[in-house]
């Protein structure tokens, strides 16, 4: 259950599949070794994601790469009973693409916050753990990121 979210969190940070996989592998191994330090009763996922993100950041630093997320919108994501008209589908596709491109243009901290909180649907606590910052910082980064996205998308979105 955790491997997908761990891998995707690592990928959001490393922006590279092989690095993300190795970071996730390392994280699970290190998490296992550190189980004795896990606080009983605490939620497991934020703890794990903090380890995953730390491994991912280490790889990003050593690789020295600064590339975009290369997010792509999947072609097939609709239930059969909700097939839109070609015009509506095109409009939806263009709106998604504009949003995706606007996310790509965000500064790294804001983009990572948006990716973790919304694209990965992590909780605030999990996002803070993944970004290694307080929840207040997550909130302020998200607030600035949303403001910027609204400006970029213009009247397309409501405040």
């Amino acid at each position: 259950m955790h491997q997908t979210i761990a891998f995707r969190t690592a990928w959001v940070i490393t922006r590279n599949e092989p690095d993300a996989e190795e970071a996730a592998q390392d994280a699970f191994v290190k998490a296992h070794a550190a189980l004795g330090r896990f606080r009983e009763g605490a939620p497991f996922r934020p703890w794990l994601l903090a380890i995953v993100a730390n491994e991912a950041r280490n790889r990003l630093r050593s690789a020295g790469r600064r590339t975009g997320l290369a997010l792509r919108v999947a072609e097939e994501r609709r239930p059969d009973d909700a097939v839109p008209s070609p015009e509506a589908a095109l409009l939806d596709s263009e709106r998604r693409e504009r949003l995706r491109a606007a996310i790509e243009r965000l500064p790294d901290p804001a983009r990572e916050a948006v990716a973790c909180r919304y694209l990965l649907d992590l909780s605030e606590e999990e996002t803070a753990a993944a970004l290694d910052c307080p929840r207040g910082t997550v909130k302020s980064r998200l607030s600035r990121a949303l403001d910027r996205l609204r400006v970029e998308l213009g009247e397309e979105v409501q405040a």
Partner: protein
Amino acid sequence: MSELESRLTQLGRELDWPATPELAPVVARRIREAEAPAPEAESPAPAPRRHRRRLLPPAGFRRSLAIAVVALLVLAGGVFAAVPNVRDSVLDFFGLQGATVERRQELPPAPPPGPLTLGQRTTLAAARDSLAFDPLVPEAAEPPDGVYVERAVPGGLLSLAYRARAGLPEAKSTGLGLLVTEFRGDLMPEYAGKIAGQATRVERLTVDGHRALWLEGAPHFFFYRAPDQPFREERLRIAQNVLLLEDGRLLVRLEGAFDRERAVELARSLR
């Protein structure tokens, strides 16, 4: 949540995320290596993958590539037993695309028995037209007695119901000889799940090159997660022996009172 936040969350569901690699075997191997440096045996070769480099441990762990055999149950009993407080969470890690197996120390209360909720009854031909995948039917069984489609699941969820008959004894869990369930695991990651107690046998298999999990023994629970509420367990019910099979993007589930060999035979005959 603002409209923009809703759009961002929706975008996350629609993104073409890179396929999650199979992490469990490598992680299990590395944990075993760290705890017992002397290898016991050679593990089966992993299936060819696009990114071969990813299967290698990073530099810090390359001291040994000799591989120990680590089966799920060995790992569960031998490694995680020492840390029962987090064992359940760690074991969440194992699963197939579209389904997970979660082992718990204590099972949830048994839900009251009720009728199966399989969706709308239809025909196989109609189901083929309405699903986002080509249905697979076990040729080792007769044609299904009932075909059902649940449209609320992205891509659709197909259920094939078979009455009990020779070779397909009645399962207490369903009242059927065989219940086949199919859905697009890639569209609904971790949509279906199992909650298994410590007495349930969980075995990883390969069926004609496809990854599979076999669950047998003490009753375990089967649930679907609501598509719009991914973390809420619902439709919890006791399940009998189950084979979960990943065939490309499709997740196939066979439930019945049959043994593993019969389940594998049925799975191999899926066409």
